[in-house]
């Protein structure tokens, strides 16, 4: 059990859980993980060097080569591209003297690109030494880099990203109205665990991390496990491109999150809670931690919480280190154990054997916040909102081609058209719901409702938390290629269909981009996508090709227009770009 020198792990956690923290510390202080550090960590943790290195190379914020005194991570997501990524990148390259993906000659700046950093409403955005800089343009970049060169610290000159809460329901906001700290705990502590489960069941609250699994079932299953040790884990890894609702919740309603987790602990009989916060949100850590310490001081965390004898609950933050797949709940568990973030098989469920093989509840930030509100204000006021069968509200992060990107808390049942109007979408054409792993819709479907009733006859749209608008000037094939590239890169690489499938599909899309694809290629994409969906190990591979399949159905004309023209086709001859194929050799013509 780990004690020495740090209070950052719970006494029940083994040293191994500390590895990721230690690697992050070294990365932050030394700029990279050197061979010597790998050796000394291997020695300290009593594992082989290759094992340490395996962990280091999994996370994109950990480097094996020096990254310079200041590290810039420029977001390269689609929204950033739309808002001017290329020019901002050039500007960074010019001002820092570092090419993208490298360090300048003086070792001052390292410049890297990274997928969505949760600031889609204020793109282009970058993290410099993990401090946020938003709404970038060439001039702003120049000023920032000059100030840093003159000795300013990014901590002092960084931006404070606005919450941009654009809309809350007229009937009252579940998530953003004032939260009376402590009240939800008071109310919940008056109930037995069974009664709490019953309330949750009535609320029909379902997981807000995207899978919509009924929260009460998860809690009840964990409650019923006989175990001395159980854990409540908050998934604040928010990596789905275009999603930033958890960022805003943590920034504005940390108390709700904390209380939701305490109620979880009380219900399931768990005494430890951990918030897994994505590495990109390091700038939120201090504020969140301050709130946690406040709760300790108020006696609402620690021993005998709120005067409830025998109920102890400790809470800490675990920082991630850059890996989208760690948002997958079992990958998140692995990551917390100081390992590579590879999703587990379904042989055991987290509620049976989760963190450290102990029963574990994992919920999204929004889920815990909703729980806290339900117990603060009562079930009735929650259930009044929304529509029958899908009560309550949902937070949606809106970005892309619209005038008012930001946070929209809608009542379930609002139509896509209403939301598009609220955010002042400009000439919307292709709308991505729930990020790249979600589904895409065309304007023909704009009157579909957003609700949890999607599985019923009525084909509503379930939204995990993001709505990204693309207008008709956007190149659909480019959008899909960008998604495929994202998944290829973020796949954990452990199962065949996802590791190879995303790569193969990206190649097919290249063919389509180059105008060399035939109708058969489209059929191939569809069939390969279905193989990935059916046989991948975790949600990443299973959902990666979703949008592609849907786009090919919903925007069929668009795809046909991009095919190799049929009047140029000879029977049995495949389209081939001979000039490109011999270009390398032609260089030797003298």
């Amino acid at each position, binding site marked *: 059990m780990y004690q020495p020198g740090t209070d950052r792990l719970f006494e029940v956690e083994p040293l191994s859980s500390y590895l990721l923290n230690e690697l992050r510390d070294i990365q932050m202080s030394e700029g990279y993980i050197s061979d010597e550090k790998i050796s000394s960590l291997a020695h300290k943790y009593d594992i082989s060097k290759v094992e340490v290195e395996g962990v280091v190379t999994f996370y994109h914020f950990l480097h094996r080569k020096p990254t310079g005194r200041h590290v810039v991570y420029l977001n390269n997501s689609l929204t950033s591209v739309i808002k001017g990524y290329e020019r901002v990148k050039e500007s960074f390259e010019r001002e820092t003297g570092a090419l993208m993906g490298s360090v300048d000659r003086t070792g001052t700046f390292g410049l890297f690109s990274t997928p969505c950093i949760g600031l889609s409403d204020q793109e282009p955005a970058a993290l410099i030494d993990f401090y946020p800089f938003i709404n970038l343009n060439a001039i702003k970049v120049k000023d920032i880099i000059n100030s840093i060169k003159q000795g300013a610290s990014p901590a002092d000159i960084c931006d404070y990203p606005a919450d941009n809460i654009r809309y809350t329901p007229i009937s009252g906001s579940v998530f953003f109205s004032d939260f009376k700290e402590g009240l939800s705990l008071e109310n919940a502590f008056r109930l037995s665990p069974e009664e709490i489960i019953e309330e949750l069941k009535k609320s029909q609250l379902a997981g807000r991390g995207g899978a919509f699994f009924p929260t009460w079932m998860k809690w009840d299953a964990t409650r019923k496990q006989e175990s001395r040790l159980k854990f409540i884990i908050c998934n604040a890894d928010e990596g789905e491109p275009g999603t930033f609702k958890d960022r805003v919740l943590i920034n504005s309603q940390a108390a709700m999150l904390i209380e939701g987790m305490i109620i979880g602990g009380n219900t399931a009989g768990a005494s430890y809670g951990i918030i897994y916060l994505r590495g990109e949100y390091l700038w939120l850590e201090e504020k969140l931690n301050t709130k946690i310490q406040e709760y300790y001081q108020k006696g609402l965390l620690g021993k005998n919480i709120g005067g409830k004898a025998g109920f102890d609950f400790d809470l800490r933050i675990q920082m991630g280190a850059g890996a989208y797949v760690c948002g997958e709940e079992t990958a998140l568990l692995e990551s917390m154990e100081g390992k590579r973030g590879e999703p587990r098989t379904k042989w055991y469920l987290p509620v049976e054997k989760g963190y450290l093989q102990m029963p574990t509840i994992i919920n999204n930030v929004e889920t815990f916040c909703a729980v806290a509100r339900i117990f603060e204000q009562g079930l009735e006021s929650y259930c009044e909102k929304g529509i029958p069968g899908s009560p309550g509200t949902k937070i949606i992060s809106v970005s892309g081609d619209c005038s008012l990107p930001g946070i929209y808390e809608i009542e379930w049942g609002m139509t896509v058209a209403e939301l598009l109007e609220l955010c002042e979408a400009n000439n919307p054409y292709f709308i991505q719901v729930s990020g790249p792993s979600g589904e895409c819709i065309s304007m023909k479907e704009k009157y579909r409702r957003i609700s949890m009733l999607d599985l019923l006859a009525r084909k509503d749209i379930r939204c995990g938390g993001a709505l990204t608008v693309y207008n008709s000037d956007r190149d659909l094939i480019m959008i899909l290629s960008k998604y495929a590239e994202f998944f290829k890169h973020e796949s954990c690489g452990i199962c065949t269909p996802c590791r190879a499938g995303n790569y193969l599909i990206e190649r097919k899309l290249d063919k389509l981009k180059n105008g060399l694809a035939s109708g058969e290629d489209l059929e191939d994409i569809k069939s390969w996508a279905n193989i990935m969906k059916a046989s991948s190990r975790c949600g990443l591979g299973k959902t990666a090709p979703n949008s592609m399949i849907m786009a090919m159905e919903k925007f069929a004309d668009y795809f046909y227009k991009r095919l190799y023209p049929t009047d140029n086709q000879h029977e049995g001859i495949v389209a081939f770009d001979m000039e490109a194929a011999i270009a390398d*050799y032609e260089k030797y013509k003298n």
Partner: protein
Amino acid sequence: MAKMVNIEIDGLPIQAEEGRNLIQVAKENGFFIPSLCYYENMDPPLGTCRTCTCRINGKPGPACTEKVREGMQVEVNKADLVDMRKSIIEMMFSEGNHFCPSCEKSGNCDLQHIAYELEISHTRFPHLFKDRLIDYNSKRMVMEHNRCIKCRRCVEEVLTDDGKRVFMYMNRGNETFVGIDYEQEAKLSEEQAINAMNICPTGTIIVKGKSFSKPFGQRAFDLSSSQKNYGKKPVKLSRGAVMEKKIVATASLAGCFGCHMSLLDVDTDLLDLIELVEFNKSPLTDIKKFAHRCHIGIIEGGCCNDENIEVLREFREKCDILVSLGECSIWGGLPAMRNTVPLGECLEEAYLNSFSNDAAKSTIPYHEDIPKLLNRVYACSEIVKIDYFIPGCPPSAGHIWKAIKNLLWHEEYSILYSEFKYD
């Protein structure tokens, strides 16, 4: 004893102990489910390769990560599932760089064996030709990363006496590979090292001097299939057609002529065949131009230059049926070893920088009259539509002629397990 439960596999009622691994139960009851990462008594099972994908209670998923439960309904041999499992193995071939004829593990390789079992003649996916460095640095072992399927066996199972891992994944996504810890590897006994090589279902982990231990014909997977009815599936029935004389054309593109040699390797049967087929354009007859349309065109080798492409396109136009014969034709084969390296580097290494060259006098040949090299070697199917594929390097003569006779005269045939070989 644990509780017995009733399950159904492809409609067959089966009793099994509750909680046992489904793949094991299926295998014990005579179902052939291919598997690569699975082996008995792993808890939890690895579940990485996905080769064992079946449909369980209506949902697709790997059999090896399922516990047997009361009322479980399992589908194994539905056409779509058979095809899906095949596709996953094909993915492994297109993702790695598998040159079986030059692989130490050939004949003893689980991946190759499963591919024979599933009768994979070609991959539906393009080969990705990702460049990977082979790691020769450790004292005793070579890590041939081109062949790794990331099954995780070595990561979990190869430990030193003091419990430290020798292998671990590095990177993620399509950059994932298995790293080896030189220090820990040195601590393994020779037996443990050889065990590591054997545990690997592919030819990735090679112990220097200990591979190639068995001659052809005696290797683990040379002779018999794991399926009782291998190759017995009826292929197109004979229509009792008269054996009309057919016209055949052949070409050797970027190949070694080995497939052509194999074509002639039918001993005295050749005399009968000569009665039945007339060779038109072919290196065997030295006829350079198509005199007439042919019933079948047989292509050895892939396309490495613009002339290959021209020839291939002409074959497509002049032949009713076009067959890719051998690995080079099917996906590039041995000549495609250059595909992971940019053309410029290949040429400079061969013509300018190599030891035997006189740097001052060397040039890279370029002339109007010599065919232009392509940036990589292409599979014939990337250039024209190919109707059939006959795998092998080279395919055995028996296999070739059985397939061709079937195509030309619809003769019934079955390929023996021992004839279906890639090396």
